[in-house]
């Protein structure tokens, strides 16, 4: 094809070299020639309907839209000719006749594309004397505020839903002047990417509800940052006013998040202002929490840790959150090692450590490359909820025809075509083993594995493909047979010659692994709790919510002599288990670095002032290191820590070694088994406190036990019943939902939601009682 041919066009007398077939508007954009537009967006299909980008092309009698015109060799274009100026003026006037001109009270004021273009291309006289159109409002949920009277019908939001979010929720109903953009009926927009329409909307029709009337665009200072939840590491802009985080926008980066942001990354900043924020160091004295000075608290922490470590350093256990920064984790590790202990781990939601390999679990390829795979096998991953923007990449691949197969303990609502093998946790292992056998690999499992045509088809598909990937997700990492799943995945990858990787759970899972926040010969996250330690150092975690087995975590810590929690929040669970709480600065308040799923190191600076007396985690740990008289704690900036880490660990990641599949399948149980998924808006301490996200249907519906109709019938339970789930010596009451997405023999009981603190392993035997 001629696609790659270089051609020359002329725009406003200036010759431009470009590729044949490119869109004129992209060519002029690249050359810095400004053509106004409303409906065009480079990540969406072309509507060519706003008629703002009209240009004059030699030999064409009418003005034509630059957004829908492919360049051709020798094309002569004018963007400021009388014909074009007249067209722009006309369109601008038409857009404004029905648009309320109340910019001073509009939330988009100061960052409105209509306002900007009107300045440059409009005229200032109003010749329209009739009443303006008014659209009644509908509520579309807690995240997006609507003012559809301001809508200019560019349909970007509609196309976004269809083309990117994969959920047609908004539409254009009615016709002509009566055409209205919206959901037609009051209906929550539920996509996990919904907030992007706020950025896409050129006017103030769709704006951020949490941000509504909070600040004006020109009062805000912008800081670039990195989103702190999933492992994509989306680039963000943190907007602050007088040191306070006011909102978060995406910062475009085609290699990572393109121009998008998940709702979790966009709206979680609200958690920064939670009432739970710890603003003052606290020490528990005789069961009572009392405020302390920093000196007092740090001294108490240091001496307490020293007292435990000096007789038996192995009695110290350190648990770090994989959402903590590299710098924080590195210092926590240094302290642990310095005290003589090897017990440190970030894999808080992992149960099965039989493999315990030191290889870094990462994607094994770039994020962007996911969109050009032709087939994928996802093992234990609710990809859409766990990693919304990785799901977006896979969706793009699927739309191009990639075959995607999932092996999961629940049926997912996906926004792309995929085949799903759904079974109980033990069945997942069987399915994977069967695929491995079908692919010609030999595992060392003792069980008899039945290979069906479906398994063979998956194996064949992988073999035939040219760029396939096998990935293990969050649900796999919490699975009681994670080690075996890994081994089988590696086996299949080898037999079918495709790449294999892990989808890291959190923003800095890879970073923690890279700098070695795992025990060598010490105790891992699970064994540290199974074999209670006398002293724990906790970095950014809430034991009842952030561990695979909260019942175990709570009992281990309650019986410990000392629990030092470096934390941004004061939560009931920490109040119960900790002895000292040191207030750490929260999201946006500290500098630091994350390593994302593809192994990319990303550094960010602090954007906002720490709340109360809280301090950046690295500073707290540095002083703690000093007080412990440990070597190598004289950093004067977090950058110094980072430089040191880069020197030591900055090498490019190698392909993940996932071990071999051997051992006993532990996930088989006799009764009901729990599927302990971590819901999207419960994943970490910050998002759990983001009030608007907690109001979404997604969050509200998460705190329920789910069983399929046959399990419900067997137990004599109905949708909406209150039930008690009993597990690991604990018990939690929840509402029951009858949900065909859950396989036989299973009860979906989420982790990290209220009530789940008293339960055991995320996967494991569980029973249900009606209350």
């Amino acid at each position, binding site marked *: 094809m001629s696609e790659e041919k270089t051609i020359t066009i002329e725009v406003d007398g200036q010759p431009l070299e470009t590729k044949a077939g490119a869109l004129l508007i992209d060519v002029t954009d690249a050359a810095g020639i400004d053509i106004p537009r409303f409906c065009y967006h480079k990540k969406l299909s072309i509507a060519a309907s706003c008629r703002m980008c009209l240009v004059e092309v030699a030999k064409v009698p009418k003005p034509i839209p630059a957004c829908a015109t492919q360049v051709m060799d020798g094309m002569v274009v004018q963007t400021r000719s009388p014909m074009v100026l007249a067209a722009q003026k006309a369109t601008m006037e038409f857009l404004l006749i029905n648009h309320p001109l109340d910019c001073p009270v509009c939330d988009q004021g100061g960052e409105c594309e209509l306002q900007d273009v009107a300045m440059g291309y409009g005229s200032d006289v109003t010749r329209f004397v009739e009443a303006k159109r008014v659209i009644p409002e509908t509520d579309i949920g807690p995240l997006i505020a609507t003012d559809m009277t301001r809508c200019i019908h560019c349909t970007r939001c509609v196309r976004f839903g269809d083309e990117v979010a994969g*959920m*047609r929720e*908004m*539409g*254009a*109903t*009615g*016709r002509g002047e009566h055409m209205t953009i919206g959901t*037609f*009926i009051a209906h929550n927009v539920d996509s996990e990417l919904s907030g992007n329409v706020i950025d896409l909307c050129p006017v103030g029709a769709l704006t951020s509800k949490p941000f509504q009337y909070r600040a004006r665009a020109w009062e805000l200072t912008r800081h670039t940052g990195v989103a702190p939840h999933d492992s994509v590491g989306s680039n963000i802009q943190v907007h602050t006013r007088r040191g306070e985080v006011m909102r978060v926008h995406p910062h475009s980066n085609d290699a990572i998040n393109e121009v998008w942001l998940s709702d979790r990354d966009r709206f979680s900043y609200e958690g920064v202002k939670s009432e739970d924020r710890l603003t003052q160091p606290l020490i528990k004295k005789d069961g009572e929490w009392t405020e302390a000075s920093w000196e007092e608290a740090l001294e108490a922490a240091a001496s307490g840790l020293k007292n435990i470590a000096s007789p038996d350093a192995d009695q110290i256990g350190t648990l770090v959150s994989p959402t903590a920064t590299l710098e924080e984790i590195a210092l926590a590790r240094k302290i642990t090692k310095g005290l003589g202990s090897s017990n440190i781990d970030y894999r808080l939601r992992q149960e099965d450590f039989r493999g315990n390999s030191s290889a870094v679990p990462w994607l094994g390829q770039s994020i962007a490359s996911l969109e050009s795979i032709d087939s994928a096998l996802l093992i234990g991953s609710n990809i859409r909820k766990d990693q919304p923007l990785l799901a977006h990449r896979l969706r793009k691949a699927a739309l191009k025809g990639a075959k995607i197969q999932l092996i999961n303990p629940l049926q997912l609502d996906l926004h792309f075509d995929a085949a799903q093998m759904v079974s109980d946790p033990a069945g997942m292992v069987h399915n994977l083993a069967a695929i491995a056998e079908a692919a010609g690999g030999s595992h060392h499992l003792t069980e008899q594995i039945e290979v069906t045509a479906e398994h063979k088809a998956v194996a064949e598909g992988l073999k035939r493909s040219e760029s396939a990937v096998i990935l293990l997700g969050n649900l796999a990492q919490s699975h009681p047979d994670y080690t075996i799943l890994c081994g089988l995945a590696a086996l299949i990858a080898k037999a079918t010659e495709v790449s294999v990787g892990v989808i890291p759970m959190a923003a800095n899972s890879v970073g923690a692994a890279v700098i070695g926040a795992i025990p060598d010969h010490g105790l891992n996250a699970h064994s540290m709790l199974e074999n209670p330690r006398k002293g724990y150092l906790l970095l950014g975690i809430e034991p009842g919510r952030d561990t695979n087995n909260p019942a175990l975590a709570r009992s281990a810590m309650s019986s410990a002599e000392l629990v030092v929690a470096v934390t941004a929040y004061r939560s009931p669970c920490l109040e119960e288990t900790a002895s000292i709480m040191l207030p750490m600065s929260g999201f946006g308040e500290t500098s630091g670095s994350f390593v994302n799923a593809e192994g990319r190191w990303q550094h960010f600076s602090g954007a906002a002032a720490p709340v109360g007396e809280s301090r950046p985690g690295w500073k707290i740990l540095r002083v703690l290191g000093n007080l412990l008289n440990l070597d190598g704690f004289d950093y004067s900036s977090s950058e110094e820590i980072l430089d040191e880490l880069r020197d030591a660990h900055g090498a490019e990641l190698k392909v993940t070694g996932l071990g071999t599949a051997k051992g006993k399948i532990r996930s088989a149980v006799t009764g009901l088994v729990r599927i302990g998924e971590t819901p999207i808006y419960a994943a970490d301490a910050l998002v759990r406190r983001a009030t608007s996200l907690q109001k979404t249907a997604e969050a509200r519906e998460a705190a329920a036990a789910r069983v399929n109709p046959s399990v419900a019938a067997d137990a004599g339970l109905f949708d909406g019943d209150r039930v008690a789930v009993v597990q690991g010596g604990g018990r939690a009451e929840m509402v029951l939902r009858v949900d065909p997405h859950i396989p036989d023999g299973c009860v979906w009981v989420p982790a990290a939601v209220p009530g789940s603190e008293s339960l055991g392993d995320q996967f494991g035997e569980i029973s249900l009682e009606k209350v």
Partner: protein
Amino acid sequence: MSALETKNRNELFTPEIRAEIDHEIAKYPEAESQSAAMAALRIVQDANGGWLTQERMDEVAAYLDLPPIAIYEVATFYSMYEHKPVGRNKLCVCTNISCMINNSDQIVEHLNNRLGIKFGEVTEDGRFSLKEVECLGACGGAPMMQVGRKYYENLTPERLDSILDELE
């Protein structure tokens, strides 16, 4: 997940309606059942007393496996779908140019007077509703109106009276 999504396709509508919709679906290539959306809405509207409710539209969406908004868009774009109750006889009077210059005003006025309703309204007994429509492609017989599937042309107040008398 809405209650509808979990509903079995075969629990939607009556078997007759399903057969009718299926007949429409069969007119189009396999992956293109959305093409039957307009016909499905028409069929369901007819069976629902001549108008659509949100529930009916949601059912059509579920039956065709489409997002509800796609159906709302269609159902609000085309003027033959009704979103409010209509009379048993929906009198659609053309007032476009050829009819207008042939005195459609007089026809409308006669209907207003005789039925006591205006455009967009339904008689109290539910027997008639009145709708203004655009050119129906029968200008040779102006003024004209459509009732149900039938065209009535060359209308005069007298002819109107006898037509109305015959409509149940």
